[in-house]
C-alpha cells in the first residue's frame, strides 16, 4: 500500500476540562477516500479543525508525507496543501462566489490592487472542471445560493489551490438526493485525481460507496481503521455505537474509560 500522505499519531486535544481527543491515530492515503465516522460529539470536527490549524493539538504528532509538521494556523495548513470543507461551510454571504473562493489568498496585480479578472477566470475554470452547471454567474452573492450550490462553492474553493489533502465535514448532510449524488461523484473524482480525501459522513451507504478506508471514532478514541472492502455497514455501525466489533476496536477497558 502507498505511504500515507497525512498521518496522525497519538493526538490529544482538550477544551479546558473536556478531553475531546484521546491518542488518536489516523492515516490518509493519496488517491484514496478515507471515511471518518463516529457518533455526534465523537470529535470528528475537532480532529479536522486541529489539522486545519484552527485548534492546536495538546500532544501527539502530525506527519505530512512522512515528515513531522506543526500546523499553527489556517495559512500553514494551506501552505502544506491541506484544505477543509467545513460542516458550516464558512462562506461569507455578503461576498460573491469569486471573492469567497479566493478569500484570504487574493491575487494582486501591480500597484497592490486586487486582480479581479484573473480571479474570476480561475474561479470559472475550477467550477467548470468540476462540471458545476447549477451556478449561473460567478459574481452572484453567496447569500443567493442554494445549499447544494454553497457546498459546491466550498469544495471548489478547496481544490482551487494546489491542494494535496481535502477534508469534507458532512458535505451531504443538508442536501437532497440529486445534489448528494453530485457531491459524492465530486468526492470520488478528487481522489481519482490523486488527492488524499477525508470524508466525514453519517450516511453509511455513502461511506461504503465512495470510500477506500473507514476510520471510526468512538468518544474521542480511534476505535479502528479498516479497509472498506473488508468491512460491512453493520460492523461500522457497531464500531460507531460501542467502539468495538468482534476482535477489532477498543479494548473494553479503553472503551469504558471514555465514558
Amino acid at each position, binding site marked *: 500500500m502507498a505511504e500515507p500522505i497525512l498521518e496522525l499519531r497519538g493526538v490529544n486535544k482538550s477544551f479546558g476540562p473536556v478531553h475531546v481527543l484521546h491518542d488518536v491515530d489516523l492515516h490518509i492515503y493519496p488517491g484514496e477516500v478515507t471515511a471518518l465516522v463516529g457518533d455526534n460529539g465523537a470529535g470528528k470536527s475537532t480532529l479536522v479543525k486541529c489539522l*486545519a490549524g*484552527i485548534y492546536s493539538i495538546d500532544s501527539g504528532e502530525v506527519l505530512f508525507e512522512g515528515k513531522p509538521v506543526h500546523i499553527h*494556523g*489556517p*495559512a500553514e495548513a*494551506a501552505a502544506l496543501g491541506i484544505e477543509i470543507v*467545513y460542516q*458550516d*461551510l*464558512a*462562506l*461569507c*454571504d*455578503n*461576498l460573491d462566489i469569486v*471573492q*469567497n473562493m479566493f*478569500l*484570504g*489568498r*487574493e*491575487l*494582486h496585480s*501591480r500597484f*497592490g*490592487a*486586487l*486582480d479581479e*479578472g*484573473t480571479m*474570476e*477566470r*480561475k474561479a*470559472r*475554470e*475550477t*467550477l*467548470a*472542471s*468540476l*462540471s*458545476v*452547471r447549477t451556478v*449561473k*454567474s*460567478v*459574481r452572484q*452573492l453567496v*447569500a*443567493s445560493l442554494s445549499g447544494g450550490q454553497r457546498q459546491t462553492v466550498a469544495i*471548489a474553493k478547496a*481544490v*482551487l*489551490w*494546489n*491542494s494535496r489533502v481535502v477534508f469534507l465535514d458532512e458535505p451531504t448532510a443538508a442536501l437532497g438526493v440529486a445534489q448528494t449524488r453530485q457531491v459524492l461523484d465530486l468526492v470520488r473524482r*478528487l481522489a*481519482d*485525481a490523486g*488527492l488524499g480525501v477525508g470524508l466525514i459522513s453519517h450516511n453509511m451507504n455513502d461511506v461504503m460507496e465512495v470510500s477506500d478506508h473507514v476510520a471510526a471514532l468512538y468518544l474521542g478514541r480511534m476505535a479502528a481503521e479498516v479497509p472498506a472492502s473488508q468491512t460491512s455497514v453493520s460492523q461500522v455501525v457497531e464500531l460507531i455505537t460501542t467502539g468495538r466489533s468482534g476482535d477489532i476496536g477498543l479494548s473494553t477497558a479503553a472503551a469504558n474509560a471514555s465514558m
Partner: protein
Amino acid sequence: MTDPKLTTPAADVAGTSAQSTAAVDFANDVGPRNIAESFRLYTQRVRGGEVGALPAVAGVIILAIIFYSANNLFLSKSNFANFLTQAAPIAVLAMGSIFVLLMGEIDLSIGTASGVCAATMALGVTRNGDLNAALGTPTYLALLLLLVVAIGITARYRLWIATGVIVLGGIFIVTKLTQHAPAAIFVSIAVGVAIGSLIGFLVAHVGIPSFIVTLALFLAWQGVLLKFIGQGAAISTQRVDLINKIENENLSPTTGWILWVVAVGIYSAYTIGRSLQRRRAKLTGEPIDLVVLRALLIAVVTGIAIYVLNENRGRTVFAKLQGVPYVVPIIFILLVVGTIVLAKTRYGRYVYAVGGNTEAARRAGIDVKRIRLSVFVIASAMAGVAGVIGASRQGGVPSDFGSHTDQLYAVGAAVIGGTSLFGGRGKVRDGVIGALVIAMIPNGLGLKNLGSSYEFMITGLVLLLAASVDAISRRRTATS
C-alpha cells in the same frame, strides 16, 4: 501577478481542459448586456433586499422638493454652499463610521474624540506649539502617554501606517512644530489615530463590546476636552488661515472647473475603459451604454452644482462671493480614497469578510483581531479630520465641541445612506449621501423658522425609517 502555487488541479479532476469547459459553461456569464437588462437585474436586486443608496437618493430628492416648495430660498445659491459646508463634518465622521459599521460594531465616541483632536491642534497653533505650557505638565504627559501606548498597540498588530502617523505626530508635539498649521492639522489626525487604536484594542483584543467602550469614551473625551481648554472657554482658530479657509473660503471658479474636468474625465475614462476591457476578456462587467449614461449623469449633476457654486452669491455689491468651498474637494478626495481602499484592496475585502462572517474570515487565515482593531483607527482618524473641518466651521474649538449630536448624526448618516447596522454591507459613499440628507433637514426647517424641536423629531424619524429599511432588506436577502 499570478501566484505560482495557484494551479488548476481540478482540470485533471474532470479529465478535460479547464479552459475549453470554462468557455462553454460560463460563456453567458458576462453580466447584463445592455441598459434594459441591467435595469431589470437592478430592480430584481432591490426587490431581493439589496436597496443600496436608492432610499437615500430618493430622500435627498424628496426633501429638496418639500423644502423648496415651502421656501424657495432652499435651492438658492447662497443656501446651497451653506448647506454643503454644514454637511461636511458629518460626512467625514460618517465615512469613518462606515468602516466600523461594516464590522457590525459601533463608535459613539467619534464626536467628542474629534473635539480632543481639534483642541490639541488649536492649542498648538495658538500657543506657539508649547503644549506643555498650554495643557499643564500632568495633562501634557498623559497625552504623550496615550501616544506611546497607541504606538505599542499599533506595532503589536502590525498597523504600521498608524504607528508611523502617531510617531510623527508625537515628534511634532514634542518639538513644538504644532505652532505651524500644517503640523497642527497633522497632529489632530495623529491624536485621532491614537484614540482609535485604544478603542480598537479594548474591543478587538480585550473583548469589551464596542457600544460600551465608546459610550464610556464619549463621556471621557468630553471631560478631557474640558480639561484641555477649560469650562465655557473656546480657542479661536479664525486667524489661522489654513484652518479657517477650509469651510469659509472658496476655490476660484476656474480652479473649480479644472478640477471638475479632471475628476469627471478620470472617472469616465476609468469606468468606460474597464467595461470595454472586461467585455473583451469575457469577464462579467457592466454594459458600456449603462456606464456612459451614468458618467454623463454624474457629469451633468456635478456640473450644475459647480455652475451654481461659481455664481456670485455675495449679499453686497462690494464683495464677490463665489466658487466651490475648499471643503468640497477635501471630502471628494476622502471619498475616492476610502472607496478604493474598500473596493480594490485586500484590506477592504477583509473588512467585508470579517463583517460578513467572522468565523469564515478566521478560517481563511485572516487576522480577524487586526482587522477589527484597524477599523476603529480609521474611524477616529476621520474624527481627527472632522475636528479640523469643524473647527474651521465654528471658527474655533469651544469646550463642548462635538458633544451634541455629531456622532449620532454620523452613524445616522451612514445608515440613511444604506450601510447596514448588522455589518458586512455598505460603501463609503453612503456616508456622503446620508450626510446630505441629515444636513438638509435643519437647513430646510431653519429657513421656515421652525425650531430645533422639529429638527430633532424629523431627523429621528428619518433615521428610524432608514434603520427599518436596513432591517427589512436584511430579512429579504437572508430569505431569498
